């Protein structure tokens, strides 16, 4: 048992810390939020710093690292609320590419590593509670091809993406793990229609409609109807990445709240001297430490392939929803009116946490997944 970062991991953390120090600024964040286009400059820096290469194999030009390093990197970036589509393109996108064909890899990875290719995982659907097996969007098998029809919702990075990883039902009914297939689809293919939208945390999502989009066998990732295991394993990494990033964000919310309470005076005293607030901040601290513990638990278990790794990841995502809600709500309440404005860190971090709880299943969904993984 060892909770120390390796030298390599520490270097990664340090470089991310520097990046955040130089780039995070509430004012700038507020401006960035209004932009729908991708922040190419930041993405270019990510490429230069080697961060896009983190989870790729060395033979593909990657750094051959894994979820532990992703965790280290994203926790730091989360402290700066950096809005780059790292999880969509590198963690989820890169994760699926690992299961792709050699041709798919050759076509995408080099460009991705240079910062020239964006990806998105098209999984959620409107009016369907997210779990992989609840996927309903149809892929009709026609000979060697599959024809996609339907709509994917809330696709993170969906409008910037050059290639989409589409999860579709090619057999069976919602609820069946069998019958799911994954496809790497050109985002500009005929029949693909994208409607971009902002998300509450200032990022970008898209509704993507598929109208008779014909996909050849070569575009498939994994076996026909047998994509569940691949999707699950990549999803778990994505959930961990989201959790790592938001754990960083929680730290900031806690620290900012504690610091604010030391300076804000009411009734002649800093509000941090009032016992009721002290106890609530102690509980925020405890919730944050528990979150950090689950993040380490889940990440190490996944990396080392423990039997209960999936369960731990679901526990982490559930904890993120619960602790995010608790810490976020308290942070606003203790900041008072200032917490309700666009001016301080607190509101922006809270919006990020509010968005993330709903992504790929909220706390309730993941608590039930814990029960099912038992």
């Amino acid at each position: 048992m060892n909770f120390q970062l390796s030298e390599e991991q520490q270097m990664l953390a340090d470089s991310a810390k520097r990046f955040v120090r130089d780039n995070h600024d509430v004012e700038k964040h507020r401006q960035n939020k209004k932009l729908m286009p991708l922040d190419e400059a930041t993405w270019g820096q990510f490429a230069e710093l080697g961060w896009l290469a983190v989870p790729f194999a060395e033979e593909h030009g990657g750094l051959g690292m894994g979820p532990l390093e992703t965790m280290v990197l994203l926790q730091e970036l989360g402290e700066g609320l950096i809005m780059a589509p790292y999880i969509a393109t590198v963690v989820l996108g890169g994760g699926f590419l690992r299961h792709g064909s050699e041709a798919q890899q050759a076509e995408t990875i080099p460009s991705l590593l240079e910062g020239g290719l964006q990806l998105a995982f098209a999984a959620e659907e409107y009016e369907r509670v997210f779990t992989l097996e609840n996927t309903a969007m149809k892929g009709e098998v026609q000979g060697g091809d599959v024809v996609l029809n339907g709509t994917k919702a809330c696709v993170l990075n969906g409008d910037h993406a050059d290639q989409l990883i589409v999860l579709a039902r090619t057999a069976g009914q919602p609820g069946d793990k069998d019958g799911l297939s994954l496809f790497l689809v050109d985002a500009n293919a005929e029949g693909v229609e994208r409607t971009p939208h902002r998300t509450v945390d200032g990022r970008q999502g898209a509704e993507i409609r598929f109208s008779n989009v014909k996909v050849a066998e070569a575009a498939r990732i994994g076996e026909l109807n047998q994509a569940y295991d691949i999707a699950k394993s990549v999803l778990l990494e994505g959930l961990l990445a989201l959790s790592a990033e938001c754990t960083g964000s929680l730290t900031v919310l806690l620290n900012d709240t504690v610091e604010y309470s030391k300076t804000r005076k009411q009734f002649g005293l800093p509000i941090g001297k009032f016992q009721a607030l002290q106890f609530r901040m102690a509980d925020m601290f405890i919730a944050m430490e528990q979150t950090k513990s689950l993040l380490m638990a889940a990440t190490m278990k996944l990396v080392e392939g423990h039997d209960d790794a999936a369960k731990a990841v679901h526990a982490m995502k559930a904890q993120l929803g619960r602790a995010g809600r608790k810490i976020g709500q308290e942070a606003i309440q203790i900041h008072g009116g200032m917490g309700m404005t666009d001016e301080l860190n607190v509101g922006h971090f809270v919006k990020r946490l509010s968005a993330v709880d709903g992504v790929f299943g909220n706390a309730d969904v993941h608590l039930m997944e814990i029960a099912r993984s038992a």
Partner: protein
Amino acid sequence: MDLRVPEQEKAFREEVRTFLEESLTPEIREAGKMVTSVFAPVKEAMAWQKILNDKGWAAPHWPKEHGGTGWSVTQRAIFAEELVRAETPPLVPMGLHMCGPCLIGCGTEEQQKEYLPKILNGEHFWCQGYSEPGSGSDLASLKTFAEKDGDDYIINGTKIWTTYAHYAKKMFALVRTNKDGKPQQGITFLLLDMDLPGISIEPIVGLDEVTEQCQVFFDNVRVPQSNRVGAENDGWTVAKYLLTFERGGQEYAPGLNVQLEKIRLMAEKQQTVHGPMSKDPVWQHKFASVEADVLALEFTEMRIKSALSSGKDPGALSSMTKILGTELLQKVTELRIETLGAQAAIWQPQALVPGNEQPVIGPEYAVTAMPHYLNSRACSIYGGSNEVQRGIIAKAVLGL
């Protein structure tokens, strides 16, 4: 003990419903459905106030001689409930519910004659100048100073969280006129025009990217002493009069019931692998738990109304309904975003602007969910934070 509804109350409810049915325009209805705050869009709220005022129903809680309706406690409650059930946009409260009552209780006859009719017909749009950057829950520590100069006061300082100051024609404000003695003493209640020289307004953008609040700065703003309500240094009494006037506080349960019904309908549309979410036991359990709380609050509010009707003063119990009402509203808005999952993260505030032609992305019922969740975080902060309210219960009710 009984819940039976007398015939005349049923008839009254019918009368209100018929009126609402006939007089609500499509624009006002639409705006009402899209409201995600206690503050409705100004244009539609004022249009609705005009319709109500034409009927004589803009301020049922005022004494009849000033333009009230003379209704009983129960009738007023029925009216309020029906407005909520019909999802009308809430009337802007600063004139009708804040300044008006203070003038009724403490204004001169002249002030009442000048201002009250214009509050009712909306000619004067008021804002409230109470909070300051340094004094939120601790209002008595306010510092904005009004210095006497001949027949005038000269005001310097700043007010914050001034809702709709950027739309307002008038402000009623608490200012310090004496720096000695206890903090509650030495405060004066003043009325002033928002276009006076020396006033500047800085809008504050909220979490939901909407500007409801402003900060207002006073740089040697000159106001005649005749604009004072009540005696000099006695403004705290004037402001407190509101508590006497609106004893028992607000009713939250009717609005919560409307929200719950909406959420139930949303849950029916969300599919899990076992069928609609509305049939999912975990969702049902959570929903039932909130339903039970709201039913309890409905009866807590009835008990307070019943006390009021028989002339009793529920006193500090309004602190309880404020805590329950606001925290249940927060829980309900949270339940809504939980019901919607990722769909709640789609951010399209432009779709909330009345009269917009923006096509909605995703289910239409999801559009208000996140803005409402975020906006509702404020309601445990303003109007006496819930920390202040718990302190009142501890001291005034439990004697701690």
